[in-house]
């Protein structure tokens, strides 16, 4: 009985599928120029996005450059590189640094960006507000190497601005960039200086979308400015705050590779060495290709899981997400 329902008469099916095939073929031919336009992009994706995924197999192999990727032998225990990493002395330090730096940036950077967005939105001097907005975007476009130069000018123990101030109060200058005690704060605050302005874009857009009659009604009811922010503006941008937080948590393992790669040095490895910088040194400087790839995959897999969860949560709570 059930089979009869599941399998429709054969002849008819082939006619239908032939018709459908013909229709698909016609549609494909109709769009042939579009396919033609996609060719360069498709080649790009195959070569620079999918070939690396294929190459990632060396994480399970004992990669020998002379043999090549395919011919290199698999490890007896496929996950040996992963296990070595997880059991190594570095593991807890790398994960710890990565999480600490990410969370510090998120928890301190975000409130400042929200406050800046609120100030820009509330200021009655629109010109000043727009000027501050424009200037605060600029550092986003500066590279971390330029930031390194700016930080040297501000922080160097010799004649850095901040150390000049410290010296003028009669205290000893602090070698911020080389001190394990201070370096994390350098990383966090330089990131805040660079990215806060740019980070306001999303909150400002959310503020602009709030119905202005809400503010007017509240004003008529005698709500103070601060009450209006607390009861209208903040709830209005709450979905944006939730989405941004979740997505940042989803990429929590990206603690800022380019930044740390440029700013750090041997004396501060213990407080700033993150997964990505370690992968770079293992792979590129020490030629431990298989090990570095395994750690990269480990990070990628956890990152994927986190992003998927974060995105689902963001969509469930606010209806919007990354994709």
């Amino acid at each position, binding site marked *: 009985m059930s089979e009869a329902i599941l399998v429709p008469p054969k002849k008819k099916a082939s006619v239908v599928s032939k018709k459908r095939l013909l229709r698909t073929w016609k549609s494909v031919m109709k*769009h042939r120029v579009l396919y033609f*336009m996609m060719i360069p992009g498709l080649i790009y994706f195959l070569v620079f996005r999918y070939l690396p995924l294929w190459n990632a197999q060396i994480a399970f192999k004992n990669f020998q450059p002379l043999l090549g990727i395919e011919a290199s032998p698999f490890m007896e225990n496929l996950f040996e590189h992963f296990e070595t990493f997880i059991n190594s002395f570095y593991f807890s330090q790398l994960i710890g640094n990565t999480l600490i730096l990410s969370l510090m940036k998120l928890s301190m950077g975000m409130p400042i960006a929200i406050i800046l967005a609120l100030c820009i939105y509330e200021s009655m001097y629109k010109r000043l507000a727009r000027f501050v907005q424009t200037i605060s*975007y600029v550092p986003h476009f500066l590279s971390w190497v330029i930031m390194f130069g700016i930080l040297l000018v501000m922080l160097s123990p010799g004649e850095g601005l901040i150390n000049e101030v410290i010296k003028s109060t009669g205290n000893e200058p602090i070698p911020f960039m080389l001190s394990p005690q201070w370096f994390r704060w350098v990383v966090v605050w330089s990131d805040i200086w660079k990215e806060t302005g740019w980070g306001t874009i999303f909150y400002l857009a959310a503020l602009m979308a709030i119905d202005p009659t809400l503010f007017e009604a509240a004003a008529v009811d005698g709500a103070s400015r601060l009450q209006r922010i607390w009861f209208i503006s903040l709830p209005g941008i709450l979905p944006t705050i939730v989405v941004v937080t979740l997505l940042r948590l989803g990429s929590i393992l990206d603690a800022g590779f*380019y930044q740390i790669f440029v700013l750090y040095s041997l004396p501060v490895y213990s407080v700033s060495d993150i997964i990505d910088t370690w992968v770079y040194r293992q792979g590129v400087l020490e030629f431990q290709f298989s090990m570095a790839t395994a750690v990269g995959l480990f990070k990628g897999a956890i990152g994927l899981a986190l992003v998927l969860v974060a995105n689902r949560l963001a969509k469930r709570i606010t209806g919007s997400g990354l994709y």
Partner: protein
Amino acid sequence: MMNKAKSFDDITFQILVNGMLISILVAVLIPMWKVLVESVTPLNYNQVQAYGLWLPFSKWDFEAYKQLLSHPFFLRAVTNSSIITVGGTIINMLLTVPFAYALSNRTLPGRKFFIIMVMVPFLFNAGLIPTYLVVQKLDLIDKYWAVILPGGINITNLLVMKAFFEGIPEELTEAARLDGANEFHVLMRVVMPLSKPILLTIGLFYAVGHWNEFFSAILYLNDASLQPLPVLLRNILLAANMNEYVEYDAFSSASVQAIKAASVFLTALPMVIIYPFIQQYFTKGTLLGSIK
């Protein structure tokens, strides 16, 4: 009475808000200003005022800039960076625009497959070494291609552009198609002129990325004569003396600090100049599609 109380409340609030705006402005500008002042401070100038934040204009000395701009190392790095930026951005746009346009066509057979094909590497990155091995195998090491091609399409930019194209009213493109235009003409004559904001925004993002290209240059370009400006800048910043980077002249020279600061300033300059012209477009462009 009521009105007065309210306006008093408003005034305190505005003082607070604008005071905060001004302090943030100062916090952003001081480091940039300090770099500028340091770059024009003459050699052996020791009457620094206000922690080196103030130097009378009559004392401004552009020796460091002269030294840098007349040195072959610096000029070569500027040339390299310009080639990478212009060439790289053109290739980025040639790869991204047609691909995004094709993906934005909702009737394209296989569209779902292509979108999944884009999303997989967006969510899961194979990592540094596997990509390095591809570049190595293609024999691109020590060629400009090595810093341009692996980042040929930025997937976020691709998705933003696709979202923008999807928002263009179908009547416009359909009308052109009925007039007998093929998709290529529709893209060139109808879609692209309507997409100026997004094209400029994404073009700027790509260009900034190339001008700032540092890590991939360290990774793929070992030949010193190919190195772009950020790599030279870092070498200058890490160097103890400037003998290598300026023509050393005992009589008229600039201090090490001034040369370091001047090279920071010169590297940042093109971005700071282009930025205001494109700024008007990119707020809208960035928002679209980055969070949907």
